């Protein structure tokens, strides 16, 4: 599968995602410069983390307006898979490809730490290598990851099963003490209604290799690029 990693000035997790796709999963990967107007025939688009354009106004606000995002929009409209990680998630919300907004962490401080995520649904390609309800350990590193939306809209997300990952305690229970950025409904990651655009704040690419002591993030990429590995009998 041909993968494209979008590169905005200020992206800084681009190499990390590229490394996992290229050297861990041995996929065909290219970088897509923010001024590109095509996706070079990529099937799978990743918006990596970082501080695109400095993120001076709001995370992702300026990147959402860059030329390449027009192509990403069209790709998504055609049902092509798009994954936004951290700043990439912010870009997707600012571009209105995903609902809601990511605001400053509850504690108003940057938080770098491991979090525990519960897989709320594994009937998406993205999560097809995880078990329903499986608890993953994924690191976060952000200052603006506090997911916000209006109560009514949050209810809609629940109803549409658009909430894919929630921050939980290691036991798997939702627990405010483990929701470090204060996200509404402990939301760590959501998907669009069509199910092909996923955004999450934690960093799967940072825990996809044995040497780093944690492989929990690898499945998220495998689900897309290695369909053979999808769990059989997953509730789909």
């Amino acid at each position, binding site marked *: 599968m041909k993968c494209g990693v979008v590169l905005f*000035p*200020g992206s*800084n*997790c681009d*190499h*990390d995602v590229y*490394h*996992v796709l290229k050297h861990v999963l041995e996929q065909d990967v290219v970088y897509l410069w923010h001024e590109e107007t095509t996706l070079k025939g990529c099937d799978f688009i990743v918006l990596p*983390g*970082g*501080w695109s*354009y*400095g*993120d*001076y106004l709001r995370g992702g606000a300026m990147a959402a307006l860059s030329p390449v995002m027009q192509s990403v929009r069209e790709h998504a409209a055609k049902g092509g898979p798009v994954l936004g990680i951290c700043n990439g998630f912010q870009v997707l919300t600012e571009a209105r490809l995903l609902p809601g907004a990511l605001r400053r962490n509850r504690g108003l*401080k*940057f*938080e*770098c*730490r*491991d979090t*525990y995520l519960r897989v709320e649904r594994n009937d998406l390609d993205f999560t097809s290598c995880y078990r329903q309800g499986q*608890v993953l*350990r994924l*690191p976060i*590193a952000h*200052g603006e990851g506090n997911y916000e939306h209006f109560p009514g809209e949050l209810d809609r997300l629940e109803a549409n099963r658009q909430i894919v990952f929630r921050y939980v305690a*290691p036991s798997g229970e939702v627990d405010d003490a483990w929701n470090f950025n204060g996200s509404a409904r402990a939301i760590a990651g959501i998907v669009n209604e069509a199910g092909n655009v996923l955004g999450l704040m934690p*960093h799967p*690419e*940072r825990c*996809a*290799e044995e*040497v*780093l*002591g944690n492989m929990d993030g690898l499945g998220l990429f495998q689900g897309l690029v290695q369909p053979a590995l999808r769990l059989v009998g997953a509730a789909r």
Partner: protein
Amino acid sequence: MTPPSPVSPKTAPPAAAEPVVTEQLAREHGLTGEEFARLLGFLGRNPTLTELGITSALWSEHCSYKSSKVYLREFPTSGPRVLQGPGENAGVVDIGHGWVAVFKMESHNHPSFIEPFQGAATGVGGILRDIFTMGARPIACMDSLSFGELDAPRMRSLIDGVVRGIGTYGNCMGIPTVGGETRFHAGYNQNILVNAFALGVARRERIFKAKASGPGNPILYAGSRTGRDGIHGASMASESFDAESQKKKPTVQVGDPFVEKILLEACLEAMRSTAIVAIQDMGAAGLTSSIFEMAARGQIGFVLDLDKVPLREPGLSAYEMMLSESQERMVLVVKRGREEEIARVYRKWGLEVATVGELRSGSRAEIRHRGKVAAEMPIAPLTDDAPVYERPVAMPADLARRQQAPEVPEVQNPTATLEALLATPELASKEWIWRQYDHTVRTNTVIGPGGDAAVLRLKGTPSGLAMTSDVNPVYCGLDPRRGGMQAVAEAVRNLACVGAEPVGVTDCLNFGNPENPEILWQFREAVRGISEACRAFEVPVISGNVSLYNETEGRSIPPTPTVAMVGVIDNLGEMPVAHFRKAGDRIVLLGKDRAEFGGSVYLRLLHGIEQGMPPAVDLAAEARLARLLRQAIAGSAVHTAHDLSEGGLALALAESCIGGFGGGNEGAAGLGARIEVDLTPLDLFSETQGRALVAVAPARLERLMRLAEENGVPALEVGEVGGTDLVIAADGATLSASVARLHEIWSTALPKALGF
């Protein structure tokens, strides 16, 4: 550009509206009478204001090292792995597999005290530029922070600002901050220290230098525009003649990490071409130091046309442009005719680039502005032949008294004593700080903050890099030589605890006023201690930085020679951690206690006594311990390794129990230990050096003991990992506490004390 016709120095006219330079004005610029005479001497005329500014910058302690040079020569700076020692933007060592590590540490103390957020941020920005200037991609930062007492004026906001500044800059750049140190001591109430370390990696053959060469080669300027940032002399000197300038306060340098990030990418991309002859970042004293130093290294002259320099606001004088410390700027020397090839790269990244001058044969600098010659000077007398002083030194008058062995109060209740120590900001968890630093970006972090040394894997190789930063200013204050040795020894120990072999040292020597003989004595002794230890461990000093005049109202900081050491792990096997991992593991204490309390945290934090000789440093024994640890870990026989430092055995055991608390791992509920030692309750807090704790599976115990014997390291099995309590049975009293409680005290103490 076409070089303007040379003018003879005699006829160099002072730019309009500039004051005539007098000895008085020179003194306000920090030049002594002799230094001013020296300037007049080689100039053969009165300097222009710009020339005075340039001279004051290049002859400043910061640029010239005039008080410290003679002592720094004592450092061992060479070795089989060293590709570049001190003298370039950063040092370079070979780390195998065709890779080199490029690293350096630098201080940003004064700016951080004025404006903590920007001061610390631009400190990180500066050290990162030093690294990528060499052609290396930065992959890790560390920060060594020295703060005053929390209740000292402004201290809490200083701490908050510094930590946010370091975090914001590194996080935005996407470079993990993987380690550091934080201390609190009244000696820093009016002079905090912010020392930033950065490390980059590059292919062996892709290293760039800042040595200008090739007459006629153009000089390029790339990055942010020049503003009136950080020009202190400027406003001072201007007021006398410029009504406008009354308003111009010396302005704080503001960092733009986003620009630095694209500058980093643009530089690394430009460096793939063969058009770059030399490249240098603009740090302290901006254009002046960068261009003069490049020219001096290449023993070549240059002409600079300031009208070509991109400005942020109109109307900067030549003086201001030459001294501006605007951030995120680079100077390049490019092969003639290939400017565009390089410029195109910077423009692609959205950066400004301009040709601002060119190299010229000869040895003189000519700086033109608005059609006039603002400066025309020989380069060597300002750089290589700058003044060097051998100032008087004197052992502090009160030293003998302070070194007298103090009365050491007995420990009544070891549990209470341990809990009291864990509750001090000094020894409590620094998590509140390093949580604000992205320490996992770039996906190399195998061990991040919280252990003895940070460990990064080296992508594409089986190897890893380890790094640590250490110094104990209290020890240094009581005996700077021993303190210097101890800093190096602890660094070696911290690296050994992750199985790493030291390959190089960078240092940041923070001291008071060198014109005070007692301070300079401290400096000399500390440097000798570091040199002696580095020789013993065969670790070269490959870069460093000196920060003097850390003094307020005659009160100097404690001598603080920060030592940052980098090590290599040939094969990243199963890594040990500093905390207990498995119930049933056998705990072995390596090294022997000698009941040493001089400068200990027990005396200082619990009894207000800062007296006595600091613990002795047996370099040979330390070397044996380090070798043993490396051998044991290489055989991946070790689950836990943690060295003993401040607070001695009790603290080390507590840290090893607490470390695994929380999360989903086995230690989640707190993994305790049962210990039995033939020590008094007081001895549990002795800070004898050369010791470490190791925990291994029972089956591996015998091998460990045999290795210890072979290496001549005293080893004693002292207990077993397990349970939810830490229980230490000592002579006459037992220390006993639940890990949960210890963790609660240790992890909440700092945020509580800060009130955040």
